């Protein structure tokens, strides 16, 4: 947990983000304003608004439901502690996901060895020593109904995602799973849009290689 939290949006003005404002943004901004005015009950509305996204990002970054739950809790605790200093000219969603990414990075770095052993599905499935295998990452999908024809691809995607480096994984999670635009991803990763695109291209190429046999 030695990483320093950097919130690049604190330096951004409302210009680039203004065009992304939506009803959710306005609802979040209102809740933030209420919270900053001393109405702590407004925080629950903010949690309810963003908890699912936070959990999913954490789940895809960490690959384990328990770790994702822990990361979600830690994320909102940090949000609670920092919300008084949050500038409402940025997107609350982006800010929260950025905090979540930092929490995930910290967890990955602090327990890198443990998590690598625990969640390297490709390595595990390639083992031929007959030892009992740990639950595969496809189990993290809690919805049995989604185990349809497309579930094979999803399972493979889950494994491939966790075979990626954290840098490649996080940019795919932000852009392709969370559907953030390039500006938001650039803010979160503290890099310009061009760098985001080139890094994203390399990440997708790595994902395609990890999906060898499924994605030509």
């Amino acid at each position, binding site marked *: 947990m030695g990483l320093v939290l950097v919130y690049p949006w604190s330096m951004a003005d409302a210009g680039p983000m203004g065009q992304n404002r939506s009803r959710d943004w306005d609802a979040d901004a209102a809740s933030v304003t209420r919270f900053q005015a001393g109405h*702590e009950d407004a925080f629950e509305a903010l*949690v309810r608004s963003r*908890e699912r996204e936070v959990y*999913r990002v954490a789940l895809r970054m960490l690959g384990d439901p328990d770790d994702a739950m822990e990361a979600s809790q830690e994320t909102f605790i940090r949000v*609670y*502690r920092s919300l008084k200093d949050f500038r409402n000219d940025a997107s609350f969603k982006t800010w929260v996901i950025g905090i979540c990414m930092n929490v995930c990075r910290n967890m990955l770095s602090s327990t890198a060895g443990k998590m690598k052993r625990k969640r390297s599905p490709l390595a595990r499935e390639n083992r031929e020593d007959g030892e009992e295998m740990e639950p595969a990452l496809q189990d993290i999908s809690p919805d049995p109904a989604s185990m349809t024809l497309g579930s094979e691809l999803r399972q493979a995607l889950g494994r491939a995602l966790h075979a990626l480096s954290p840098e490649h994984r996080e940019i795919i999670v932000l852009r392709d*799973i969370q559907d953030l635009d390039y500006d938001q991803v650039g803010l979160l990763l503290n890099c310009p849009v061009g760098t985001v*695109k080139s890094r994203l291209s390399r990440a*997708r190429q790595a994902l395609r290689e990890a999906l060898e046999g499924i994605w*030509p």
Partner: protein
Amino acid sequence: MAMTCDEVRELINREGAITSGEANSHVHECPGCQEFWDHWQAVRKELHAMGEEDTPPFLHTRIMAHVQEAAESEHAKGAWLFGLKKLWAGPLLVLFLGLLLGGYGLVQVLRPKAPSEPVPAASRPLSSKQKPGAEAKAKDAPAALELFKSVAPVAGQSREAVPAPSSPSAPAPAARADSASTPPAPAGERPADLQSDMADERKDSLFATPPPPQQKGADDKGAFQPLSNRFEERAAPEPAGAASRDSSRPSATALSRPKAELSAQLPESEPLASVVCTLSPLMGSGPFISLQLPPSAAPPSGGVWTVVISPDSALRVQDSAGKPMDASLATLRDVIHPLHVPPGSYRLKRIS
């Protein structure tokens, strides 16, 4: 086809979409790139679906519970910090009061007592006989009293000839009776013997047991005598005739305190014919001694005499007009000499 397959796939990887008509034409005409594009769309759809997965039940409850817990601890921490800031005032106040009281106590200890303050030695509890030796050592006045009583009646008489105190309140160490059988030492051995006897005296008054044989040798080396005492010994060398007073030396511990208050008392044969006087240095620091003297050897009421003790222990007494008071000299010498007052000029003031 203007774009190559690699360029089209790089574009799809980079943008996630076909953003140019040229690339679009290539994809429509190239089956491999078409398959690449179709698969990318399938992958992207699944990735999007990952972003819509169900979350575990009680996610909100669990998050809120932890946030609530963190908020409470945050508030408690804030309150604790606030309390800590307030608590700084407490130790500072205690420290201030401690320094104040300590300073006051120090002043009280070091300050010469006002003329009306000295308590006549006869009214003080003389408990060195009743209390353990360590406590008796702490009581300077009884020690001085004991020493005075042991020598005052007959100046120049050796310790062996000094009768045991008759007063029940005065200490009568058994060790003294034991040591009474020791023959007087030759005058040539006096300095070392004096130190040894002083140590013996302390031992007597503290433990009432005879000193071990090897202690004398240790005393010769000064092992059992504080450096300050030895310094005082050198500063006030004993005259040749001091052999008769060696047993009357007061406790060196008492004299090692520059501001120690020593009380002396005349023999009880004339308790009613005594007056209380104080002996204090004319200048600078030095012992502040309370004495009981016969009226004939004391200044008139409210009067002040000057007592000069030379390094050879000779005594000169003058009244306030500078007139020598030779009539009182012998009595004062008998009272002051046993106390081993350092050489210097003193003010002898009658209090009562």
